[in-house]
Protein backbone atom coordinates (compact mmCIF):
# COMPACT_ATOMS: atom_id res chain seq x y z
CA UNK A 1 0.00 0.00 0.00
CA UNK A 2 2.72 2.46 1.01
CA UNK A 3 5.04 1.32 -1.79
CA UNK A 4 2.22 1.63 -4.34
CA UNK A 5 1.40 5.15 -3.22
CA UNK A 6 5.08 6.16 -3.38
CA UNK A 7 5.37 4.89 -6.95
CA UNK A 8 2.14 6.59 -8.00
CA UNK A 9 3.09 9.93 -6.46
CA UNK A 10 6.55 9.98 -8.05
CA UNK A 11 4.95 9.17 -11.42
CA UNK A 12 2.37 11.90 -10.87
CA UNK A 13 4.97 14.57 -10.13
CA UNK A 14 7.00 13.55 -13.17
CA UNK A 15 3.96 13.75 -15.43
CA UNK A 16 3.02 17.16 -14.00
CA UNK A 17 6.51 18.52 -14.79
CA UNK A 18 6.24 17.03 -18.29
CA UNK A 19 2.83 18.58 -18.82
CA UNK A 20 4.10 22.10 -18.22
CA UNK A 21 7.45 21.68 -20.00
CA UNK A 22 6.45 19.94 -23.25
CA UNK A 23 6.35 22.18 -26.32
CA UNK A 24 3.74 20.13 -28.15
CA UNK A 25 0.44 21.25 -26.63
CA UNK A 26 -1.46 18.04 -27.38
CA UNK A 27 1.24 16.00 -25.62
CA UNK A 28 1.04 18.40 -22.66
CA UNK A 29 -2.73 17.97 -22.44
CA UNK A 30 -2.40 14.17 -22.57
CA UNK A 31 0.16 14.30 -19.74
CA UNK A 32 -2.32 16.36 -17.72
CA UNK A 33 -5.01 13.73 -18.30
CA UNK A 34 -2.58 11.08 -17.04
CA UNK A 35 -2.06 13.17 -13.89
CA UNK A 36 -5.85 13.17 -13.37
CA UNK A 37 -6.01 9.40 -13.83
CA UNK A 38 -3.23 8.80 -11.27
CA UNK A 39 -4.98 11.15 -8.85
CA UNK A 40 -8.15 9.09 -9.20
CA UNK A 41 -6.15 5.96 -8.25
CA UNK A 42 -4.81 7.83 -5.21
CA UNK A 43 -8.38 8.71 -4.20
CA UNK A 44 -9.21 5.02 -4.38
CA UNK A 45 -6.26 4.25 -2.08
CA UNK A 46 -7.46 6.97 0.31
CA UNK A 47 -10.85 5.18 0.60
CA UNK A 48 -12.88 7.70 -1.38
CA UNK A 49 -14.54 5.69 -4.19
CA UNK A 50 -17.14 8.36 -5.01
CA UNK A 51 -14.53 11.01 -5.66
CA UNK A 52 -12.40 8.52 -7.58
CA UNK A 53 -15.25 7.80 -9.99
CA UNK A 54 -15.96 11.50 -10.47
CA UNK A 55 -12.30 12.32 -11.11
CA UNK A 56 -11.84 9.42 -13.53
CA UNK A 57 -14.88 10.25 -15.63
CA UNK A 58 -14.71 14.05 -15.53
CA UNK A 59 -11.06 14.93 -15.06
CA UNK A 60 -9.58 12.29 -17.30
CA UNK A 61 -12.20 12.09 -20.05
CA UNK A 62 -14.33 15.22 -20.42
CA UNK A 63 -11.74 17.85 -19.44
CA UNK A 64 -9.12 16.32 -21.71
CA UNK A 65 -11.58 16.21 -24.62
CA UNK A 66 -12.50 19.86 -24.10
CA UNK A 67 -8.81 20.86 -23.99
CA UNK A 68 -8.03 18.88 -27.16
CA UNK A 69 -10.90 20.55 -29.01
CA UNK A 70 -9.55 23.91 -27.89
CA UNK A 71 -5.98 23.09 -28.97
CA UNK A 72 -7.20 21.83 -32.34
CA UNK A 73 -9.03 25.09 -32.87
CA UNK A 74 -5.96 27.22 -32.06
CA UNK A 75 -2.22 26.53 -32.31
CA UNK A 76 -0.75 23.10 -31.89
CA UNK A 77 2.65 23.99 -30.43
CA UNK A 78 4.01 26.54 -28.03
CA UNK A 79 6.74 28.73 -29.48
Amino acid at each position, binding site marked *: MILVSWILIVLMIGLAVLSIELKNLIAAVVAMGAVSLIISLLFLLLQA*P*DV*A*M*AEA*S*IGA*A*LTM*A*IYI*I*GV*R*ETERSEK
Partner: protein
Amino acid sequence: MIRKIVYAIFAAIIVIALVMFFAAYPFGANKMAVGTYYLNHGVAQTGAANIVTSVVLDYRGFDTLGEVSVLFAAAAGVAILFFMLGIGKKERENLTKPNFVVRVGSRIIFPFILLFGTYIFVHGHLTPGGGFQGGSIIASGFLLLYLSYPGTRVNRGGLSIIEGLAGLTFVVLGLWGLFTPTDSFLYNFLPKGLFNTLVSAGILPIIYIAIGFKVASEFAGIVDDMMCEVICRGGEK
Protein backbone atom coordinates in the same frame (compact mmCIF):
# COMPACT_ATOMS: atom_id res chain seq x y z
CA MET B 1 16.22 33.11 -16.60
CA ILE B 2 16.60 35.02 -13.34
CA ARG B 3 12.89 35.73 -13.49
CA LYS B 4 12.11 32.01 -13.53
CA ILE B 5 14.36 31.39 -10.53
CA VAL B 6 12.70 34.20 -8.57
CA TYR B 7 9.23 32.82 -9.26
CA ALA B 8 10.34 29.28 -8.38
CA ILE B 9 11.56 30.63 -5.02
CA PHE B 10 8.18 32.32 -4.60
CA ALA B 11 6.35 29.02 -5.20
CA ALA B 12 8.72 27.31 -2.73
CA ILE B 13 7.90 29.91 -0.06
CA ILE B 14 4.19 29.19 -0.49
CA VAL B 15 4.86 25.46 -0.14
CA ILE B 16 6.85 26.10 3.06
CA ALA B 17 3.93 28.10 4.45
CA LEU B 18 1.57 25.23 3.62
CA VAL B 19 3.89 22.75 5.33
CA MET B 20 4.03 24.91 8.46
CA PHE B 21 0.24 25.17 8.48
CA PHE B 22 -0.35 21.45 8.01
CA ALA B 23 2.17 20.47 10.67
CA ALA B 24 -0.70 20.91 13.14
CA TYR B 25 -2.85 18.38 11.25
CA PRO B 26 -0.95 15.07 11.11
CA PHE B 27 -1.81 12.58 8.41
CA GLY B 28 -4.30 9.88 9.30
CA ALA B 29 -5.08 10.90 12.88
CA ASN B 30 -8.50 12.19 13.96
CA LYS B 31 -11.64 13.17 12.18
CA MET B 32 -13.66 16.31 12.66
CA ALA B 33 -16.50 16.36 15.20
CA VAL B 34 -19.10 17.05 12.50
CA GLY B 35 -17.94 14.07 10.47
CA THR B 36 -18.17 11.83 13.50
CA TYR B 37 -21.71 13.05 14.16
CA TYR B 38 -22.75 12.37 10.56
CA LEU B 39 -21.23 8.89 10.65
CA ASN B 40 -22.98 8.02 13.91
CA HIS B 41 -26.41 9.46 13.16
CA GLY B 42 -26.53 9.54 9.33
CA VAL B 43 -28.15 6.17 8.80
CA ALA B 44 -30.85 6.77 11.37
CA GLN B 45 -31.61 10.27 10.12
CA THR B 46 -31.53 9.86 6.34
CA GLY B 47 -31.73 6.12 5.67
CA ALA B 48 -29.05 6.10 2.98
CA ALA B 49 -26.25 3.54 3.12
CA ASN B 50 -23.75 5.86 1.44
CA ILE B 51 -22.90 8.59 3.94
CA VAL B 52 -21.33 10.79 1.24
CA THR B 53 -24.68 10.85 -0.55
CA SER B 54 -26.52 11.84 2.58
CA VAL B 55 -24.01 14.65 3.25
CA VAL B 56 -24.21 15.91 -0.34
CA LEU B 57 -27.97 15.76 -0.70
CA ASP B 58 -29.43 16.00 2.77
CA TYR B 59 -27.20 17.84 5.23
CA ARG B 60 -25.75 20.11 2.55
CA GLY B 61 -28.50 19.93 -0.06
CA PHE B 62 -28.71 23.70 -0.43
CA ASP B 63 -25.02 23.79 -1.32
CA THR B 64 -25.65 21.22 -4.06
CA LEU B 65 -28.51 23.31 -5.43
CA GLY B 66 -26.14 26.27 -5.76
CA GLU B 67 -23.51 24.07 -7.36
CA VAL B 68 -25.97 22.80 -9.97
CA SER B 69 -26.90 26.37 -10.82
CA VAL B 70 -23.18 27.27 -11.23
CA LEU B 71 -22.97 24.38 -13.68
CA PHE B 72 -25.97 25.74 -15.57
CA ALA B 73 -24.40 29.20 -15.70
CA ALA B 74 -21.15 27.79 -17.13
CA ALA B 75 -22.99 25.79 -19.81
CA ALA B 76 -25.05 28.84 -20.77
CA GLY B 77 -21.85 30.92 -20.89
CA VAL B 78 -20.20 28.52 -23.33
CA ALA B 79 -23.28 28.53 -25.55
CA ILE B 80 -23.52 32.33 -25.52
CA LEU B 81 -19.82 32.80 -26.27
CA PHE B 82 -19.89 30.47 -29.23
CA PHE B 83 -23.22 31.26 -30.82
CA MET B 84 -23.75 34.95 -30.21
CA LEU B 85 -20.21 36.33 -30.24
CA GLY B 86 -18.92 34.03 -32.97
CA ILE B 87 -16.47 36.47 -34.50
CA GLY B 88 -14.15 35.65 -37.40
CA LYS B 89 -14.79 31.97 -37.98
CA LYS B 90 -11.82 29.91 -38.98
CA GLU B 91 -11.89 27.85 -42.15
CA ARG B 92 -11.91 24.11 -41.73
CA GLU B 93 -9.95 21.65 -43.82
CA ASN B 94 -11.74 18.43 -44.72
CA LEU B 95 -11.87 16.16 -41.72
CA THR B 96 -11.26 12.50 -42.42
CA LYS B 97 -14.12 10.20 -41.61
CA PRO B 98 -13.65 7.46 -39.02
CA ASN B 99 -13.57 4.03 -40.57
CA PHE B 100 -16.11 1.24 -40.54
CA VAL B 101 -14.85 -0.48 -37.39
CA VAL B 102 -15.11 2.60 -35.21
CA ARG B 103 -18.55 3.52 -36.49
CA VAL B 104 -20.12 0.09 -35.97
CA GLY B 105 -18.34 -0.39 -32.65
CA SER B 106 -19.49 2.89 -31.22
CA ARG B 107 -23.03 2.15 -32.35
CA ILE B 108 -22.89 -1.11 -30.39
CA ILE B 109 -21.23 0.41 -27.31
CA PHE B 110 -23.31 3.59 -26.94
CA PRO B 111 -26.47 1.97 -25.41
CA PHE B 112 -24.29 0.11 -22.90
CA ILE B 113 -22.66 3.38 -21.83
CA LEU B 114 -26.13 4.87 -21.29
CA LEU B 115 -27.14 1.79 -19.28
CA PHE B 116 -23.98 1.98 -17.15
CA GLY B 117 -24.49 5.66 -16.37
CA THR B 118 -28.12 5.06 -15.46
CA TYR B 119 -27.14 2.17 -13.17
CA ILE B 120 -24.62 4.39 -11.41
CA PHE B 121 -27.01 7.23 -10.69
CA VAL B 122 -29.98 5.05 -9.75
CA HIS B 123 -27.88 3.21 -7.14
CA GLY B 124 -26.32 6.40 -5.83
CA HIS B 125 -27.58 5.99 -2.27
CA LEU B 126 -26.40 2.39 -1.91
CA THR B 127 -23.06 2.04 -3.69
CA PRO B 128 -20.30 4.51 -4.62
CA GLY B 129 -21.45 6.73 -7.42
CA GLY B 130 -24.32 9.07 -7.99
CA GLY B 131 -25.71 11.80 -10.14
CA PHE B 132 -22.49 13.63 -10.94
CA GLN B 133 -20.55 10.52 -11.91
CA GLY B 134 -23.37 8.88 -13.88
CA GLY B 135 -24.20 12.11 -15.69
CA SER B 136 -20.62 12.66 -16.77
CA ILE B 137 -20.36 9.05 -17.99
CA ILE B 138 -23.46 9.59 -20.15
CA ALA B 139 -21.96 12.82 -21.48
CA SER B 140 -18.76 11.00 -22.42
CA GLY B 141 -20.97 8.55 -24.33
CA PHE B 142 -22.28 11.50 -26.33
CA LEU B 143 -18.66 12.55 -26.91
CA LEU B 144 -17.97 9.10 -28.37
CA LEU B 145 -20.96 9.53 -30.71
CA TYR B 146 -19.60 12.89 -31.88
CA LEU B 147 -16.13 11.51 -32.51
CA SER B 148 -17.34 8.54 -34.51
CA TYR B 149 -20.02 10.32 -36.54
CA PRO B 150 -18.74 13.83 -37.27
CA GLY B 151 -21.60 16.10 -38.19
CA THR B 152 -24.23 14.66 -35.84
CA ARG B 153 -26.35 17.09 -33.90
CA VAL B 154 -28.09 16.37 -30.64
CA ASN B 155 -31.62 17.71 -30.34
CA ARG B 156 -30.90 20.85 -28.32
CA GLY B 157 -34.57 21.55 -27.59
CA GLY B 158 -34.98 18.14 -26.02
CA LEU B 159 -31.81 18.67 -23.97
CA SER B 160 -33.06 21.98 -22.60
CA ILE B 161 -36.44 20.46 -21.72
CA ILE B 162 -34.78 17.57 -19.84
CA GLU B 163 -32.47 19.96 -18.04
CA GLY B 164 -35.29 22.31 -17.05
CA LEU B 165 -37.50 19.48 -15.81
CA ALA B 166 -34.66 18.04 -13.73
CA GLY B 167 -33.90 21.38 -12.12
CA LEU B 168 -37.60 21.93 -11.50
CA THR B 169 -37.87 18.55 -9.76
CA PHE B 170 -35.06 19.50 -7.40
CA VAL B 171 -36.57 22.88 -6.52
CA VAL B 172 -40.13 21.54 -6.15
CA LEU B 173 -39.00 18.72 -3.86
CA GLY B 174 -37.13 21.30 -1.81
CA LEU B 175 -40.08 23.65 -1.59
CA TRP B 176 -42.40 20.81 -0.61
CA GLY B 177 -40.50 20.55 2.65
CA LEU B 178 -41.72 24.02 3.58
CA PHE B 179 -45.31 22.73 3.76
CA THR B 180 -44.50 19.83 6.10
CA PRO B 181 -44.73 20.43 9.86
CA THR B 182 -40.98 20.99 10.17
CA ASP B 183 -40.99 24.07 7.90
CA SER B 184 -37.56 23.45 6.47
CA PHE B 185 -36.24 23.56 2.92
CA LEU B 186 -35.29 20.15 1.42
CA TYR B 187 -36.88 18.22 4.30
CA ASN B 188 -36.87 14.47 3.73
CA PHE B 189 -40.65 13.98 3.93
CA LEU B 190 -41.03 10.57 2.27
CA PRO B 191 -40.84 7.36 4.39
CA LYS B 192 -37.32 5.97 4.85
CA GLY B 193 -38.10 2.42 3.76
CA LEU B 194 -36.03 -0.69 4.46
CA PHE B 195 -32.33 0.05 4.91
CA ASN B 196 -29.96 -0.95 2.07
CA THR B 197 -32.66 -1.67 -0.53
CA LEU B 198 -33.32 0.18 -3.78
CA VAL B 199 -36.47 1.99 -2.63
CA SER B 200 -35.26 3.65 0.54
CA ALA B 201 -33.93 6.92 1.92
CA GLY B 202 -36.98 9.03 1.03
CA ILE B 203 -36.36 11.78 -1.49
CA LEU B 204 -32.61 11.24 -1.91
CA PRO B 205 -32.75 8.82 -4.90
CA ILE B 206 -35.25 11.07 -6.71
CA ILE B 207 -33.00 14.08 -6.28
CA TYR B 208 -29.93 12.14 -7.40
CA ILE B 209 -31.74 10.93 -10.53
CA ALA B 210 -32.72 14.53 -11.30
CA ILE B 211 -29.10 15.66 -10.80
CA GLY B 212 -27.93 12.85 -13.07
CA PHE B 213 -30.20 13.99 -15.90
CA LYS B 214 -29.21 17.60 -15.37
CA VAL B 215 -25.44 16.98 -15.35
CA ALA B 216 -25.69 14.69 -18.38
CA SER B 217 -27.66 17.19 -20.45
CA GLU B 218 -25.45 20.10 -19.47
CA PHE B 219 -22.14 18.39 -20.26
CA ALA B 220 -23.63 17.02 -23.49
CA GLY B 221 -24.60 20.60 -24.35
CA ILE B 222 -21.07 21.87 -23.68
CA VAL B 223 -19.55 19.08 -25.80
CA ASP B 224 -22.11 19.79 -28.52
CA ASP B 225 -21.24 23.49 -28.58
CA MET B 226 -17.51 22.91 -28.80
CA MET B 227 -17.63 20.07 -31.35
CA CYS B 228 -20.13 21.85 -33.57
CA GLU B 229 -18.09 24.99 -33.48
CA VAL B 230 -15.30 22.92 -34.99
CA ILE B 231 -17.17 20.61 -37.31
CA CYS B 232 -20.69 21.65 -38.25
CA ARG B 233 -20.33 25.39 -38.55
CA GLY B 234 -16.91 25.31 -40.18
CA GLY B 235 -18.36 23.48 -43.15
CA GLU B 236 -21.40 25.60 -43.84
CA LYS B 237 -19.75 28.95 -44.40
